[in-house]
Every structure is written in structure tokens, then in C-alpha cells.
């Protein structure tokens, strides 16, 4: 009989240890699942990637295939910027075909300056080097400091605004 008591005590001890282990593991799982900081940095990475790709797309256009180029532009944008591109499409296509330019871009650096996860809005800075090649002429390379805004859409983060980063007193 005392042998059984010892066995019972051991079993009880094991049960307590198991409960503690389970509680620890459960808490571990909970914090990992609700790690807001981790989610935030993942969102920033997503925003950065979309911004780089978006600016790259909007800085690339070949007069021989303006339609595909502008379709990519529309696909990379949302909101006001999307509307502007859609409205100016015909006029712009004519201009580029007449000028016969090929524009390529290289993203030098990009960073996120603002990010609001809740409202799904972000601001980014992008340093980009664009090269415009006129027909039969020498390519002209220019470095631009751009500032863009992105909004979260069902299709991922897309550019809603893009322009030169202000200089001077503004």
C-alpha cells in the first residue's frame, strides 16, 4: 500500500509539471501569434517592396510598347494617381510615340517614412536613377529624389501619389 501512495504522489507531481509546461508553451504560442512589433516590421517590408516595384514600373516606358507600359502603370497604382494615369492615357501615349523615347530606371534606395497599419496608408522615399534614351541620341541619366504614398488594396500595397521630394523651404 505505501508503494501505491508513492506512485500516486509521483503521478500528481508529473501532472503539475505537465500543467506548468503546457502553460509556458501556451503563453509562448500566444505571444508569438500576437507579436505586434513583428507584424509591423513585416508590413514595412511589404510596403517597401511594393514601393520599389511601383516606382520602378512608373519610371519605365518604351515608346514601342506604350500600351503594355501604361497597363503596368495602372496596375501599380490606386486612388488619385491611378485616375490621373487613366485620364491622361491617350494624350500621353501620343506624346511618347512622337518623342520615341525609351525610359529605364534603377532604384538606388528606398525607405518607409510613415506607416499606419490600421488605416493602410504609408509614405515612402525613393532614390531612383532614370535613363532616358531619345531616338538615335545619347542616353541622359538623372537622379531623382521621390516621395510617394501607398495605400493598402485587396491586390496589395499600391502607389496613390508620387512626386519629387520637396527641396528648400517647403
Amino acid at each position, binding site marked *: 500500500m505505501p508503494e*501505491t501512495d508513492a*506512485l*500516486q504522489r509521483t*503521478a*500528481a507531481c*508529473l*501532472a503539475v*509539471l*505537465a*500543467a506548468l*509546461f*503546457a502553460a*509556458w*508553451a*501556451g503563453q*509562448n*504560442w500566444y*505571444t*508569438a*501569434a500576437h*507579436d*505586434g*512589433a*513583428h507584424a*509591423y*516590421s*513585416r508590413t*514595412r*517590408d511589404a510596403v*517597401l517592396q511594393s514601393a520599389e516595384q511601383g516606382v520602378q514600373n512608373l519610371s519605365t516606358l518604351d515608346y514601342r510598347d506604350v500600351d503594355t507600359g501604361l497597363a503596368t502603370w495602372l496596375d501599380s497604382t490606386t486612388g488619385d494617381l491611378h485616375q490621373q494615369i487613366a485620364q491622361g492615357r491617350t494624350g500621353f501615349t501620343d506624346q511618347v510615340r512622337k518623342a520615341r523615347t525609351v525610359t529605364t530606371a534603377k532604384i*538606388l*534606395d*528606398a*525607405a*518607409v*517614412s510613415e*506607416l499606419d497599419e490600421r488605416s493602410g496608408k504609408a*509614405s*515612402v*522615399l525613393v*532614390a531612383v536613377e532614370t535613363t532616358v534614351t531619345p531616338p538615335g541620341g545619347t542616353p541622359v541619366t538623372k537622379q531623382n*529624389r521621390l*516621395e510617394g504614398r501607398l495605400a493598402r488594396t485587396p491586390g496589395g500595397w499600391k502607389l496613390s501619389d508620387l512626386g519629387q*521630394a*520637396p*527641396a*528648400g523651404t517647403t
Partner: protein
Amino acid sequence: MSRLLGLYKPFGVALGLVLVALLLHPIAGRLRDDGTPRDRAVLDGVATTDVTGDVSTALSRIFSYTPADVSTAQRTAADVLTGAAAQQYRQIFAQVQRQAPAQRVALTTRVTRAGVISLVGDTARLLVFLDQTATRAGRPDGTPAAAQLTVTAHRDDGHWRITELKSA
């Protein structure tokens, strides 16, 4: 015998708990390791705001001087720069210190925009757009120059210090 049978219950409960724990543990590990970023130190963007503010203030102060006062910028630099950045700055500023008073050159640096490229633990990389206006003998010396820098910063004791400066 009946007492021996009664033991199955606590053993069963213990076994069940261990199984649940063992199941949850790898899930937690996978949740944490999901994706490439390891930016665990970012607490809902507070660190982002801190590092952007600290670095912007530091840059505008260490790259602004007047012919009469070059040493304020240098003293600030001793506080906010460390490692390779401090060394780089000393080299640049040795020249400034010699020429600024004689040529009456003043420089004003303004950070127009700053953003975070990455933030991992206590190390951050930033992209900073800045404008520099030089005056010679009180007159503007050319148009403001637009520059961009990639900055590496490290946090010690809650303050971000610049460890590396690179013109982008």
C-alpha cells in the same frame, strides 16, 4: 487494485497536457520565424519614430556651422557619431576647421525627409534626403544642394547614434 486503476486518471491528464504543450511549441516557433524580417525591437513604430528623429536632428546639427562657430557642430558630432562615421567626420571637418573662418563659409543643412530601410534589434538603416545651403561672406554660394545619405545607426541606452554615413 482499485487505487492502482485510479492512477490512470492523473497520468492521462498529465499525458494530455504534455501533448498539447508539445503541439503548441513548434507552432509558436514557426509563427516567430515566419518570413525574413527579424525586426523584433520595433514596438508599434515607436522605435521608428525615435530613430528617424534622433538621426535627423543629429545630421542637421553636425553639418551646420558658421565661420565663427565650427566647434558646436564638432562637439555634437562627438556625441552622436561613433565608429566609422566619427572617423569620416573628423577627416572632413579638419578641412572645414581650417577653411571656414578664412573663407567665411557657413553651411546650413536641413533634413527634408527621412525614412527607415530596415530596423533589426538595435540597428537601423535609414535613407535621408537633405538640403545644404552654403553662404560665403553672408551671401548665398550657389543654389541649395540636394543630397541623399544612407545612414546606419545603433541604439545604446535608448539613444540612437550614427555608426556609418554613405552618400546614396
